[in-house]
């Protein structure tokens, strides 16, 4: 009896150790970036790497308000991501309701179309967009970037919102229909309050995807409109060895994303899984 108990406890300990090791592999590079960001540039390149050092906030100050400030680029990313998210939600939410709940002519075909647009390789869009935006003078503008960001956020948001719409109990609409509420009123007063959580999750995901985007950003923006991901990249290609500043800048740009990821944690897991757990009931 005790032998078996011991063996089970040993197995549990082993499992925990294995899982924790993988956890450490995930967390470590981010932790290390934080450590490096607190060092001076000369200390970063010390060999062997110093574990005991006087932490400095110099890099964070420099990349926030100093010579290497990335605040302007963060502002650019914020404007592009916010406007793109707002447009996306406005268009995607009504569409998702029709897909999930209403008799829609050619609904299956249209649903398939939305799904197909989500699978487009971005490089197939960045080439024509470069040529088109160039010829109409919209390269390196907010308008151009926002339109381009709709290409991936719109299909994704419709797809995600459909799964939240499907969770709304049908009785709610039936009750509204008996009360002779108009369809628009039903959508606005009955359905929307039910999917507020879903909309919040969609906002988080769309905003995150826009903020983190790189391919469109590096090719279709430039000096006037430069998103933060491009600023990060330039940091290394221009300032080869300023790792501490790169780390500080990257953390400044990414910590807000981690924060909204954590805040929406429970929902993010649901957002990722909603299609999968249901056995992928998507058309």
């Amino acid at each position, binding site marked *: 009896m005790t032998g078996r108990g011991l063996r089970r406890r040993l197995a549990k300990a082993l499992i925990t150790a294995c899982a924790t090791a993988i956890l450490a592999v995930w967390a470590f590079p981010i932790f290390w970036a934080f450590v490096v960001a607190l060092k001076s540039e000369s200390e970063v390149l010390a060999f062997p790497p110093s574990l005991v050092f006087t932490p400095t906030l110099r890099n964070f100050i420099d990349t926030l308000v100093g010579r290497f400030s990335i605040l302007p680029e963060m502002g650019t990313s914020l404007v592009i991501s916010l406007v793109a998210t707002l447009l996306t939600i406005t268009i995607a939410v009504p569409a998702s309701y029709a897909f999930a709940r209403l*008799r829609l002519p050619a609904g299956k075909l249209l649903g398939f179309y939305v799904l197909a647009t989500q699978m487009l390789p971005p490089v197939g869009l960045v080439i024509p967009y470069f040529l088109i935006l160039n010829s109409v003078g919209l390269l390196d503008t907010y308008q151009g970037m926002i339109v381009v960001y709709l290409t991936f956020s719109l299909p994704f948001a419709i797809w995600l919102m459909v799964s939240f719409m499907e969770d709304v109990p049908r009785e709610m609409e039936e009750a509204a229909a008996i009360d002779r509420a108009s369809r628009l009123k039903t959508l606005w007063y009955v359905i929307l309050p039910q999917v507020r959580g879903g909309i919040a999750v969609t906002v988080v995901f769309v905003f*995150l995807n826009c903020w983190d985007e790189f391919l469109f950003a590096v090719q279709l923006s430039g000096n006037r409109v430069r998103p933060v991901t491009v600023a*990060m990249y330039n940091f290394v290609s221009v300032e080869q060895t300023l790792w501490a500043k790169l780390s500080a800048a990257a953390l400044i740009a990414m910590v807000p994303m981690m924060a909204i990821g954590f805040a929406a944690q429970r929902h993010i897991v649901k957002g990722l899984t909603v299609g999968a757990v249901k056995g992928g009931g998507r058309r």
Partner: protein
Amino acid sequence: MKGVNRAQASWMKGERLFATALVAPGVIALLVTTTAPLVYLLWTSLHAANLSMPWVKGFVGLDHYVHMLGDGRFWDSLRLTAIYTVTTVVLQVLIGLGLALLVLQIPHGQWLFRLVAILPIVLAPVVVGLFWRTLMLSPSFGLFDIFTTQVFGRSYNWLGDPTLALISVILIHTWQWTAFAFLVLLAGLASIAPDLYEAARIDRAGAFARFRYITLPLIRPAIMIVIIMRAVVALSAFAAIYAATGGGPGTATQILNLYAYQTSFVALDFGYGSAQAVALLILTLAVSAALFRLRRPKGWA
């Protein structure tokens, strides 16, 4: 009776109109922002559009596609795309599933795993690529290199050696996205009713039999969704590779996606680059269609 039918018919007609009105902005926006540019991509791929030779213009038919079939670099990039996609997806599913099974055995602290798993997912791939290129894999100062010089007494050129560079970009992608597979599969596993395992235990089914005959069939749909979603993303992976190796050394990590980018924006041959992008588009649609077909277990409708 007839009156009721007519009322019902008009109600349904109203519903169809309403539904069409709700969907129209989305579908029109997608037609304008995605389908129209794609048509233009197709058009470009049939024309000479090389900005380094702007005097060569006009319709060239399928010339770019014929050229592509004889282009060794194209086939090489296709080979790299296959290696990159298959290995990253397999690694993500295996490690993600393994970790999810492990974490489910842990009585306390599962929330910590769910929380930490969010970290890599929210990072911009370009930042991940830069982190690895500098802090982790850089010669002499990167942690990996410091580790190998201390332990194995030699330094590896992680991003400078063709084979090691390919392994590196695969590991970078796997590091970032296994968390996605882990979270989806953990939720899938957690939704399996515990009584199924109880029943199997009463029937004296071993741990492996329980996994093979209960867990695997029930988690299969979630695994398929992870495979489909991750394969589509891996086929179009860009930022992390671009930031870590830029497709190099030479063309050692230049998957088709990066080759199409390079042809268009570095060599400025938009015609040929468009043809390569069309090839990637067809490949992506074919792979996802094939995976969608596989999604249903055999014998099901």
